[in-house]
C-alpha cells in the first residue's frame, strides 16, 4: 500500500524540457516495477502537437504535447494527477486550472520561486476543492513498487539501492528534496524501505503539511513508522508534534529537524529554503520543534547522522513486536537492468552495428578536423594552401608545388565570367528577389549542366578515353565520338575562334607546358584533336572547359570530380554577384514586355464548362 501515488496513477506534466526529463526518469521507474507508463500527456503551448519520445525500458512511447490541460484530459480521461514543471510566473494559473479540472485528485509542483501569495491561494483552493496540492518546490512523490511522480529517487541505480522496486514499512515526509532521497536510502539501509515518500517543499507556505500526510500514513496499514525531516521556520513540525500527542497513534514517528545552528549564525540569515527562517522570539526555531516532537513521543536524534541508528532501532522494535514481518530479500539480479543505449553497449564491445555511411577523407572527432589524416592547423602552419586541401579532399593526395600552382590558376581563371552567363544571371535574379545568399547562389548553381559549365567532366573523360583507345589515331577517335557521343565536349565556342582565340586557354596551355614539368598526355591529345577540328571549322577550338578537363586529368584527378572545379570556382563569382546586388540594394527584376515574344492566342471568351 501507499499514499498519494499508486499503480492507478496516470499523470500529465505541465511544462517544457524539464518536464520531459522528469517523464523519462519516471518511465525508468515504470520499467523497474513493470507498470504502464505513468505520464500520458504533456501540456506546453509552444510545443503543441509535438510528440515526446519516452522509453520505458526498451519500449519507445510517443507522448503528445497539448496546448491546454483541458485538451489533454479530454483525450486522456484516465489522467488523475498533474505535475507542474512550468516557470514561476505561470505556475499559479496552471495549478489552479489543474485543481479545478474534473478527475484530477493530486497536483504536485516542482516550480521554485513561486510568490508566497500564489502558494497561499493554491493551498486554500485545494482545501476548498478537497484536492491535494503538493509543493511548490517539491521534488516529487515516490511510492515504492507502485509509482514515481517527479525525479525523486534520482538515477536508476539508486532506485534499486533504495529498494524502491517493492514497498517497505516506512513513510517519509521531508521539506527538502535531496533529503527525501537520503531518507529513502536510510530506510532501505536500516529498515525494509519505504511505502511512500513525499517532499512537501521548503517554501514558507507549502500547499500541504506534515499532518496531512501523517494522517494518510496512519490510515495506510502497511506504513508502520514515518520519518519526518523538517527544518527551522513555520510551525508545520510543531503541528506534527501536536498531532502525535493528540491521541495514541499507530505509526511511530522519527524526526530530524535542521537549523539548530541558527543561534550562532548572523540573525535573519537565509538558508537554502525560502521557508527556513526563524520567526520572532524563537517561534519556529529548530530547537522548539525538536522539543515539541520529543515531548510528543517522536524519536529525534541529535544530528541527521543519528537518523540511521534511530531508524534501525525502530525497525528492530517493530520486528520484535511482530508489526513488521521480515521479508525475504529480493535477489537484485532479478530486477531488470535498464537497457543501455547503443553507445554504451558499443563501449563495452558487446554489439556490432553496421555503419550507415563510410568516409575516407576527413574526421572531426578529435580536437580539430583532420583531412586524410593531416590536421588542418598543421597544414596551415606548414604553408599549404586551399589547393592542397582540394587535393586532399577530392583526390586524397597532397599536390606538389607545381601542381598546386596549376590548380590555383584553374580556379582563378574560372571564378567568374560576368553577369550575363546563366549561372551568374540566375544568382543575380535571385538576389534581386531578396533571396538569401545560400539559396541565391544555389539558384545559380542549378544552371550548371550540359549547356553551361558542365562540360569539364565530359571533356576530361572522352579525351582520356581517346588517349587510351585511339592513341595516334585522332580521326578514329573523332569517328568514334561522332557515332557514340556526338560533338566532342570541350571543343567549340560560340564566339571564339582560331582568329579570335580564347585568352584563358592560351594562357593555361602556355603556362602548363612552358613553366611546369607536368607530363600532359591528355592536353597534348586534345591539342591534336583541335588541329583537326579547326581545319574543318574555324570555331571548333579547344575551349576552356576542354583545356581545364584535360589538365585536371593530367593532374590525376578522377574524371568524375572535374566539374567540381567549375562549381567551386563559380561559387566565388556567384557569391560576389549576390553581395554586389545587395550592396546596390537592387530592385526586383521583371522582364520588359519588349524582351518577350508573346506568341500566344488572341484574347477570347471562355466557353461554358461542359
Amino acid at each position, binding site marked *: 500500500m501507499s499514499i498519494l501515488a499508486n499503480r492507478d496513477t496516470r499523470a500529465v506534466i505541465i511544462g517544457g524540457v524539464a518536464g520531459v526529463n522528469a517523464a523519462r*526518469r519516471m518511465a525508468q521507474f515504470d520499467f523497474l516495477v513493470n507498470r504502464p507508463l505513468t505520464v500520458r500527456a504533456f501540456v506546453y503551448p509552444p510545443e503543441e502537437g509535438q510528440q515526446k519520445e519516452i522509453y520505458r525500458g526498451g519500449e519507445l512511447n510517443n507522448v503528445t504535447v497539448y496546448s491546454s490541460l483541458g485538451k489533454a484530459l479530454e483525450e486522456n480521461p484516465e489522467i488523475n494527477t498533474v505535475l507542474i514543471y512550468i516557470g*514561476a*510566473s505561470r505556475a499559479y494559473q496552471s495549478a489552479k486550472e489543474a485543481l479545478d479540472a474534473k478527475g484530477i485528485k493530486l497536483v504536485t509542483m516542482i516550480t*521554485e*520561486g513561486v*510568490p*508566497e*501569495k*500564489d502558494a*497561499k*491561494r493554491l493551498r*486554500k483552493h485545494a482545501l476548498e476543492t478537497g484536492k491535494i496540492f503538493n509543493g511548490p518546490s517539491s*521534488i516529487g512523490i515516490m511510492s515504492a513498487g507502485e509509482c514515481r511522480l517527479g*525525479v*525523486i*529517487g*534520482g*538515477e536508476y541505480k*539508486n532506485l534499486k*539501492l533504495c529498494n524502491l522496486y517493492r514497498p517497505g514499512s516506512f513513510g517519509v515526509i*521531508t521539506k*527538502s*528534496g*535531496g*533529503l*527525501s*532521497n*537520503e531518507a529513502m*536510502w*536510510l530506510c532501505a*539501509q536500516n529498515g525494509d524501505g519505504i511505502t511512500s515518500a513525499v517532499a512537501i517543499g*521548503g517554501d*514558507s*507556505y507549502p500547499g500541504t503539511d506534515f499532518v496531512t500526510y501523517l494522517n494518510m500514513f496512519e490510515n495506510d496499514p502497511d506504513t508502520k513508522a514515518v520519518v519526518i*525531516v523538517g*527544518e*527551522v521556520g*513555520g510551525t508545520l513540525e510543531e503541528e506534527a508534534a501536536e498531532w502525535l500527542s493528540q491521541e495514541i497513534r499507530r505509526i511511530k514517528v522519527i524526526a*530530524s529537524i*535542521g*537549523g*539548530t*545552528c541558527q*543561534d*550562532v*549564525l*548572523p540573525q*535573519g*540569515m*537565509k*538558508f*537554502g*529554503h*525560502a521557508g*527556513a527562517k526563524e520567526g520572532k522570539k524563537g517561534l519556529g526555531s529548530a530547537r522548539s520543534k525538536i522539543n515539541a516532537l520529543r515531548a510528543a513521543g517522536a524519536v529525534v536524534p*541529535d*544530528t*541527521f*547522522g543519528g*537518523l540511521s541508528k534511530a531508524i534501525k532501532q525502530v525497525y528492530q522494535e517493530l520486528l520484535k513486536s511482530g508489526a513488521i514481518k521480515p521479508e525475504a530479500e529480493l535477489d537484485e539480479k532479478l530486477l531488470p537492468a535498464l537497457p543501455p543505449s547503443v553507445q554504451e553497449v558499443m563501449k563495452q564491445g558487446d554489439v556490432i552495428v553496421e555503419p550507415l555511411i563510410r568516409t575516407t577523407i576527413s574526421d572531426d572527432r578529435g580536437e580539430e578536423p583532420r583531412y586524410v589524416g593531416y590536421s588542418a592547423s598543421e597544414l596551415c602552419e606548414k604553408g599549404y594552401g586551399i589547393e592542397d586541401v582540394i587535393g586532399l579532399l577530392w583526390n586524397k593526395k597532397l599536390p606538389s608545388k607545381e601542381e598546386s600552382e596549376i590548380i590555383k590558376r584553374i580556379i582563378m581563371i574560372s571564378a567568374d565570367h560576368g553577369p550575363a552567363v546563366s549561372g551568374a544571371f540566375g544568382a543575380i535574379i535571385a538576389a534581386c528577389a531578396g533571396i538569401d545568399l545560400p539559396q541565391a547562389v544555389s539558384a545559380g548553381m542549378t544552371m550548371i549542366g550540359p549547356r553551361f559549365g558542365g562540360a569539364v567532366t565530359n571533356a576530361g573523360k572522352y579525351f582520356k578515353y581517346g588517349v587510351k583507345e585511339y592513341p595516334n589515331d585522332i580521326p578514329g577517335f573523332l569517328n568514334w565520338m561522332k557515332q557514340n557521343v556526338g560533338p566532342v565536349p570541350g571543343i567549340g565556342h560560340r564566339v571564339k575562334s582560331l582568329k579570335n582565340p580564347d585568352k584563358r586557354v592560351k594562357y593555361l596551355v602556355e603556362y602548363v607546358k612552358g613553366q611546369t614539368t607536368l607530363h600532359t598526355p591528355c592536353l597534348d591529345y586534345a591539342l591534336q584533336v583541335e588541329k583537326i577540328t579547326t581545319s574543318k571549322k574555324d570555331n571548333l577550338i579547344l575551349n576552356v572547359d576542354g583545356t581545364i578537363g584535360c589538365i585536371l586529368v593530367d593532374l590525376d584527378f578522377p574524371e568524375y570530380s572535374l566539374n567540381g572545379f567549375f562549381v567551386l570556382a563559380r561559387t566565388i563569382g556567384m557569391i560576389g554577384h549576390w553581395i554586389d546586388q545587395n550592396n546596390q540594394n537592387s530592385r526586383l527584376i521583371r522582364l520588359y514586355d519588349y524582351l518577350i515574344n508573346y506568341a500566344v492566342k488572341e484574347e477570347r471568351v471562355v466557353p461554358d464548362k461542359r
Partner: protein
Amino acid sequence: MAKILEGPAMKLFNKWGIPVPNYVVIMDPDRLAQLGEANKWLRESKLVVKAHEAIGGRYKLGLVKLGLNLEGAVEAAKEMIGREIGTSVVHQVIVAEMLDHDEEYYLSIAGNRDGSELLFSNKGGVDIEDNWDTVKRIFIPLDMTPSIEQITEAALEAGFIGEVAERVAKIASRLILCFDNEDAQSIEINPLVIRKSDMRFAALDAVMNVDWDARFRHPDWDFKPVSEIGRSYTEAEQQIMDIDARIKGSVKLVEVPGGNIALLTAGGGASVFYSDAVVARGGSIANYAEYSGDPPDWAVEALTETICRLPNIKHIIVGGAIANFTDVKATFSGIINGFRESKSKGYLENVKIWVRRGGPNENQGLAAMKLLQEEGFDIHVYDRSMPMTDIVDLALNA
C-alpha cells in the same frame, strides 16, 4: 523575503495613499543644500537625518540625527556619508521632515498561512514592546478585505477615539491595499504620528519586506532588497550572489567570521544539517554554503575557490545527501578544479577535506575526488554508506 529600505517603502506608501512625511534620499550633501532652496519644508521644518543603509542599531552608532535645521542636516549628512561601519559603508542618507506631533501609534501587517494579520496600538513608538498587550489584532483571511466599519470598530476597541479611530482605520485599510497589491510579507509602521491641530498623520518610520519572488509582476520596483543578515554583504558573498543570479540551479554563501570549519555542502536541506552537526559537536563554522539544482561546474568551482580563501580554516566539509538530479561527477569536477587552483595559489595548507556524497554518477565523482590524495591533498572520501553528517564527527575528532 526581501527587506527594502525606508526610501522605497515610503515611495510605495505614497503610491497607496499612506501618509508619509516629506523626505528626500541623497548621496551628496551639496545636493541637499540645493534641494533646500527649492523646497520650503526643508527650510522651515525640523529635520531628521538617517543613514539610508541596512545597518542595525543606527541610533547608537550616531547614524540618526534629530531636530536639525537645514544647515545642521547638511552637516549631519556630510558626517554620515562615507562612514564605514564594519563591512558596510554609508552611501546614502534619508532626510525627512520631523513632524511635531501629539501622539505615536503602532500599525503593522504581516502575512501568515491563511491570510494576514493587522495589528495596531495607540501606544506606539519606542516603547511598543512594553505595551505589547495593548496591541489589537485583526485576522484578514486570504483575498478578503475588511470594511472600513470593521476596522474602525477594532480601532475603537484598541482605544482609539472618535475621528482618530476613523482616520486610523482609513490608513489601515490603505495599508492592507498596499500589502496585498505589492506582494508584501510584512509592513511595520512605528510610529504612525498624529498632529491633532490639523489632524495630519504621517508614517515616520517603516520596515517593509516584500516577496522578491513576485518581482516579475512589479515592473515599477526600481529598488533592490537589502542584505538580510544585519550587515552588508562581503565582496565574496556578493560575487557568489552575482553568479547565483546567472545560472540554472543555485550557489549560496554567507561568511561567519571566526569559525574554522568551512562548509561546501550541497542541497538546501542537507547544508543546514551539516551546519547543525558542526555546532552540535562543539565546532565553529566559518561559513554557510550551498549548491543545488545541478549548477554548472564553473559556478561550483567559483564557490569552492571562495571557500578555500576563508581565513584560518582547518577543515572543509564537502557534504551532501544522495542527489536526485544534481550530477555528482560534474559538480565534483568543479570542486576538484577549485581545490587545485586554490592549492596552486598557496591555500589549503594544513586543511583537511572531508567528502560524503551520493547521486547520479556518484562512483566517478567520488573516485575523481579520491585521486586528489595522490596530489598531496589531505582528503577523506566517503560514499553513501557513511551516514550523512558523520564526516563532521570524523573531522572534529581528527
